């Protein structure tokens, strides 16, 4: 029984390291699918999430891993299918969507199709940026919504200069600053567009803007997103810390079991003797 117990305990502790091994050696820089069809990409400085076909949010959601807390994930910008349209059709409700990662795991291709129209949203993470490329099989009129809670300024417009939804001058770059509410950190983001869009609109919310909408007429548009944290906030617990914690939990629980098995048994015996 002793050998069996030792084997089982070693087994429990050894398995608890699997998430850490995966995080350090396998999960880096490749699109990985999980859950009900979500995909995630972890690069050294960016974490990108692309939700499953049954969810219209985070299509994709681009996060930055700040250097002061590499396990933290701070969202820079989220593309939303719930609120984006192509030729008047809602990307979430009016299209059939299939998602595939390329063979090398570097590019994620989400295909949106409906009669007479097919478009691809291709996401690629390069060394310092995340590219979201929209390619259609014909010229389209698109309305893309980009969300961030909250941007304190967009192309130098603030809530003071744009207190209501407002069209701002079109250009190929959208620069914004933001406050991250979860970490209380501040940062900057930049979205470069491959072509000048027909309109860019900012939408006020509380003390800043919570979304920027980009409208364009073309068969192709690339959004190149980058961002960084300029002022570190409070470093707190992060989900990505879990792989480091699980081995500790395993060791503590197993130790507790061994102690109870050893001393609990002795006490039981002693109690038995007293009664007898």
């Amino acid at each position, binding site marked *: *029984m002793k050998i069996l117990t030792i084997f089982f305990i070693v087994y429990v502790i050894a398995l608890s390291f*699997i998430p850490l091994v995966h995080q350090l050696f396998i*999960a880096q820089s490749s699109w990985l699918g999980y859950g*009900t069809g979500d995909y*995630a990409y972890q690069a050294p400085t960016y974490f990108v999430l692309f939700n499953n076909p049954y969810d219209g949010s985070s299509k994709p959601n681009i996060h930055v891993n700040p250097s002061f807390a590499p396990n933290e994930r701070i969202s820079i910008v989220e593309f939303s299918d719930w609120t984006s349209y192509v030729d008047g059709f809602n990307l979430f409700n009016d299209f059939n969507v299939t*998602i595939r990662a390329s063979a090398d795991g570097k590019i994620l291709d989400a295909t949106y199709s409906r009669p007479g129209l097919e478009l691809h949203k291709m996401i690629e993470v390069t060394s310092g940026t995340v590219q979201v490329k929209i390619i259609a099989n014909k010229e389209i009129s698109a309305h893309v919504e980009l969300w961030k809670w909250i941007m304190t300024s967009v192309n130098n417009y603030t809530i003071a200069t744009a207190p209501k939804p407002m069209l701002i001058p079109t250009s190929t770059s959208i620069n914004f600053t933001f406050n991250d509410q979860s970490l209380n950190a501040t940062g900057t983001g930049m979205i470069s567009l491959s072509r000048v869009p027909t309109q860019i609109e900012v939408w006020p919310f509380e003390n800043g803007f919570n979304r920027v909408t980009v409208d364009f007429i073309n068969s192709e548009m690339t959004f190149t997103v980058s961002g960084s944290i300029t002022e570190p906030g409070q470093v707190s617990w*992060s989900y990505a810390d*879990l792989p480091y914690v699980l081995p500790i*939990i395993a060791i503590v629980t197993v130790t507790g*079991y061994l102690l109870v098995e050893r001393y609990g048994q002795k006490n039981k015996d002693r109690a038995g003797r007293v009664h007898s």
Partner: protein
Amino acid sequence: MDKRIKIVLAAFIVRAAIAPFFMHAGDLGTIYESSAIALNGGNLYNFVYQQTLQMQYATGLPVFFEGYAYHPLLIYFFVPFYWVYTLIAGPSPSIIGGHFPSLPVLVYPWSLIAILMLKLPIILADVAVVYILAGIDRKKAEIYAFCPYIIFISAVWGMFDAIVALFLLISYLTFNRKNSYVVSGLAYGLSLMKLYTIVLLPLYGARLWGKWKDLGKFILGFSVTLLPVAYYWMVSLLAFWNVLVGFQANRIMGGVNLYNFVWIIPDVNFDLWVSRIPNILLVVSVLAIVMLYGRRLPLLEAILAVMLVSFVFGKVLNEQFLVSIFPLMLLCEECDTRLWIAPFSFIFLRSPFYYFAIPILWGSPYFYDLYFQADTIWRYLQTVGYLMIPMYAVGIAFSLLLFWNLTQVLSISRPAAGTLSRSFSRVIRILRK
């Protein structure tokens, strides 16, 4: 009134009073949906298979639709009750949707009646277990009748492991009686409506090896339960195979066990690969127990040893699985049945309690709103990973408690061949052959 009847009645009343107001929307919704399909003559496995194919096509991943993935016999325990419900409420649906991650739409008051009716076979199974146990030991019957964990799984959650427990108990009690091998085989076959009791098949085989007449009787009873399997095998082989075998074999490990760490690894292909480790250990450990202890231990302890080792090493161990062996554990002197506390506490770490109270909360706009307010907090705790820490700790603790019970059960007999390492070598040799 006879005390035995009093306990049985009390067990029934407690459960029936709670039943209509709570449910696990995903699981009870599956039974509701499947009962409707079965009553209308539809093919359950085709439905689930189509959903799986659709998900796999959309995502490009080996993901499965979690629907009716049980023995075909199971649904016929629910269909008569569903049919009675339709006589009362009519054919219009009253529980709509509810497959994870979506929430159900409930039509009042019919949904409450539907919930009660679909839980009745489970409650009756619970009550039958209480009745049988009361005939053996009234105190043990009381523990089963009023154990919060057992009541929760049957009357609140709406999971049907009590039916498995009943048939497993009958199979055990009738096994050693003269001329009861047919009943034992039949009851064992019925316990397979949740497939995890399949690990007992080699044990029954080992116990009856050489007693060919008794083995024949056991197989006769057992084979009756395979008739619906044969039917579905013929009419929709691909769907049946995919849903029952493909899903179970390609399931990602996890549950109230030491494997739930896999839930934090967002990589389905890796998760599937690593889930093979428990499969190997499960096969080796079950065969080892059967060969070394299968005939030496008394039947009760032998059954428990095989089930416990499959729970310890098997890749999936859901909160409700313990119900199936709980009556047997109560009858076993070496077992500590207080281990139910671990899966019971795990329930509330994995799903918030208000999720089970949907039939109450959906009844008023105020409570409906409260549900989503509470859910925002819950989802935050989940997303940040705070819940995963206690879930993992409870998972390991439960595995260790099961392991401890296993060692207690095995300790009443010494294995056939001296040391453990020698025994393992023997198993490996036999496997190679």
